[in-house]
């Protein structure tokens, strides 16, 4: 048995058994964050906090939710909304959280793209981040099935049909995923399992991985400067706090994060209490009916851009386009051929690429919501083509980029 001295404090007692001092040093007091960053670097912690809120509100919804095709709709819209004390609060928090989390994810992603935070040792941060994006998408989709309203049913029908692979006619695969010819009890039950257990577990694992991939390369900064962290840390520890380019993650940087989170949560709860309806599709307040399609089926706003990439084409091309759009962002670190880690504004043509991509995705998002008719169809088609043209152009323009 290892030798233990008598401890003089609870801290020391824990340290002897769990090395908490080492942990604290590695993860907090000597995890260095550059000073040269802005509020956009707080989005990661905002995301972590939002996930925490989704988890807590989800646990309370879970106490009354019934994953049964006959009772799911009422358990949400009647029991939770009007019988359970403050049930409406959990539901509105959960719905608003699920929508806003995607807004923050997109900001977080585009911040990374703008500052080139996905290259030179930061590839795994980007890849694990994309893993989180996919996992959150699956989480939101599976959650959307649960109230078993008209949009749940028909979104479930349309999205699972994607797996037939167009002309491949893999109807067997679609029926396997559903456990039925159409979405039914087996379907609701398995998506319930995915939503409350398997995907949240995967998300937690991916968050840990995402944080782990950050530890060695450290976060990027506003100039893409390669910082000598050992030297900067030494200065800081010697008390030359002003001269040092870094601050410790905790408590110094975290206190800045908390300020941004404070502002964010004021906005968040304003939405929860006064404007929750944007996160609640009115069509989903009609119970699921397999014999009646709603006039317009559209996904939640955060899937609209990729939906609009699918829509203007014939089935097979649309499916291929959609599949590529789902994974293309994973390839960003490998398609960007320039060694420069710098804000887009200093990277020549990449600056235009960045803004063109952002605007194109906004256009796709707006078009995805409009009915596929006339001029809207045309704009949608053009925006979808531009999306792919930009990805084809990326390796070419970044290879030509001047080294900074």
């Amino acid at each position, binding site marked *: 048995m290892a030798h233990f001295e008598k401890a003089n404090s609870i801290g020391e007692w824990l340290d002897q058994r769990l090395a908490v001092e080492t942990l604290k040093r590695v993860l907090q007091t000597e995890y260095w964050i550059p000073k040269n960053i802005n509020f956009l670097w707080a989005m990661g912690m905002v995301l972590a906090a939002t996930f925490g809120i989704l988890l807590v509100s989800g646990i309370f919804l879970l106490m009354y939710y019934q994953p049964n095709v006959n009772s799911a709709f009422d358990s949400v819209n009647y029991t939770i909304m009007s019988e359970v004390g403050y049930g409406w609060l959990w539901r509105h928090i959960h719905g608003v959280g699920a929508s806003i989390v995607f807004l923050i994810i997109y900001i977080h992603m585009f911040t990374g793209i703008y500052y080139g935070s996905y290259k030179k040792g930061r590839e795994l941060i980007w890849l694990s981040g994309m893993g989180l994006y996919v996992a959150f998408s699956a989480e939101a989709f599976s959650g959307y099935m649960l109230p078993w309203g008209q949009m749940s049913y028909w979104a479930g*029908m349309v999205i699972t049909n994607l797996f037939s692979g167009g002309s491949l006619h893999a109807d067997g695969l679609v029926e396997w995923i559903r456990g039925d*010819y159409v979405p039914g009890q087996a379907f609701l039950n398995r998506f319930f399992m995915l939503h409350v257990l398997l995907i949240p577990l995967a998300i937690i694992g991916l968050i840990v991985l995402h944080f782990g991939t950050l530890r060695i390369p450290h976060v990027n900064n506003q100039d893409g400067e390669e910082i000598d962290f050992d030297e900067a840390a030494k200065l800081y520890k010697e008390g030359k706090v002003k001269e040092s380019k870094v601050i410790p993650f905790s408590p110094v940087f975290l206190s800045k994060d908390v300020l941004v989170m404070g502002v964010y949560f004021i906005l968040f709860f304003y939405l929860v209490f006064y404007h929750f309806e944007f996160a609640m599709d009115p069509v989903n307040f009609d119970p699921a009916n397999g014999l009646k*399609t709603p006039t317009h089926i559209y996904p939640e706003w955060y899937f609209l851009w990729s939906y609009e990439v699918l829509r203007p084409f014939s089935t097979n091309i649309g499916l291929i386009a959609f599949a590529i759009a789902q994974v293309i962002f994973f390839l960003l670190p490998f398609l960007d051929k320039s060694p420069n880690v710098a804000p887009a504004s200093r990277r020549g043509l990449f600056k235009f690429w960045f803004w063109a991509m952002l605007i194109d995705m906004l256009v796709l998002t707006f078009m995805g919501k409009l009915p596929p008719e006339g001029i809207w169809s045309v704009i949608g088609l053009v925006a979808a083509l531009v999306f792919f043209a930009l990805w084809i152009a990326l390796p070419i323009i970044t290879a030509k980029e001047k080294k900074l």
Partner: protein
Amino acid sequence: MSNKTTKGRRDFMGMALGGFTALGGLGALYAMKRTWDPLPSVKAAGFTTIDLKDAPENVLITEKWRGKPIFVLKQSKEMMAKTTEKTKKRLIQIGDAHYMVSVGLCTHLGCIPGYNPEKESFLCACHGGTYDATADVTKAPPPRGLDIPPFKIDGTKLVLGETGPEYEKMLADGTTLAV
């Protein structure tokens, strides 16, 4: 014992353990796959009989088979005049009457198209696909006309889920895909 024989034994035990673990893993994967399969009770509940005798012309009737909507549309004289060699094959003939019978799910991504009796055509609101009165596709994205469910003619009745000679003919000449 020499180092060499220990190493040999370690390798052997490693491989034996690895082999059995892989076998168990494969078995577990198969069990998981089977657990996701549709239940036998779901598969078995698959037959519906519909009577076409009283169906009115140019009025869309919607029945239900395996949870899916089934469209029945009796064709009028005017509608028959508009059919082509190819689209006529899609219709089921009973006596002198012709019926369009198909699964009412868009072949694009499965929305239910709506019928407009004035225009004698279907519009799928999801992505704008259209079909004519025989449910053949007239505008993409749907890749083909609505699928025809397996049927057997029994007097003026149709048994959906059973395969009769008329349906086999449709399958053979590519008028419909198997559903």
